[in-house]
């Protein structure tokens, strides 16, 4: 059941991205930026939370989930440390993803070379 829900929620979020790409010619970079920012806003408003409860990885693996974690982290930071938590919380909540992206991204770029595109 988890898998069906994750598939549907995750697939649906990707379809929104695809429609934006086809209809508005938004570049992938703009899609990435707007989806993460949208995730922060929806996360802060409490709109994304039910989606995470329902779709689990289907909602957390797509980039709005990254934004949701940023917002959730910022809230948690404020709860624990007051105003400074607004600065520490977001990055803390996404530290694993950011550090993994920097570390593995760097390692893979060093090991591999670009393949010829057909």
């Amino acid at each position, binding site marked *: 059941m988890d898998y069906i829900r994750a598939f549907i929620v995750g697939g649906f979020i990707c379809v929104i991205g695809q429609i934006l*790409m086809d209809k508005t010619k938004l570049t*992938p970079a703009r899609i990435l930026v707007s989806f993460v920012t949208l995730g922060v806003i929806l996360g802060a408003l409490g709109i994304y939370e039910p989606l995470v409860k329902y779709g689990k990885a*289907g909602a957390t693996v*797509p*980039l709005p989930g990254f934004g949701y974690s940023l917002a959730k982290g910022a809230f948690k930071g*404020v709860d624990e440390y007051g105003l400074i938590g607004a600065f520490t919380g977001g990055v803390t909540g996404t530290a*694993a993803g950011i550090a993994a*992206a920097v570390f593995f991204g760097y390692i893979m770029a*060093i090991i591999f070379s670009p393949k010829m595109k057909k």
Partner: protein
Amino acid sequence: MEKKLEKQLSEEFKNMVDKNNPQSSIIKDCIFAFVIGGLICDIGQFFMNLFLSFGIPEDNVGFYVATVMVFLGAFLTGLGIYDNVAKYAGAGTIVPITGFANSIVSPAMEFKREGYILGVGARMFIIAGPVLVYGISSSVIVGIIYYFIKYFVK
């Protein structure tokens, strides 16, 4: 010299895009994006269930899943597999966090010839940088607003 090459490449790319555009209907694109995006999320779900079965607390399991998915995205990009799938999947491979890893590895590999500092080190953030700038900045704003709502509007 390099500028010229880049310009030529971007023109070629534009031609390729234009040539492919009329044939690819939006519905077909959406089906591919849905299926492949959904499958990537199911891989994430698989790891989530796996880590939960190892007894990792639910609050932390997201960290594990994010790390594994980013690793897979980066590794498959290095092997050249991710970009082959991306040709069909479109947003299905861009929107998941694996696409974020892909956006780091691709330019970093491409610009390796410019050196390890300004080539790999700088270019890996050409897309990831803006994502972090806007993502983190908006989380700071949201945190500050939350602080004031919490302490002054009771």
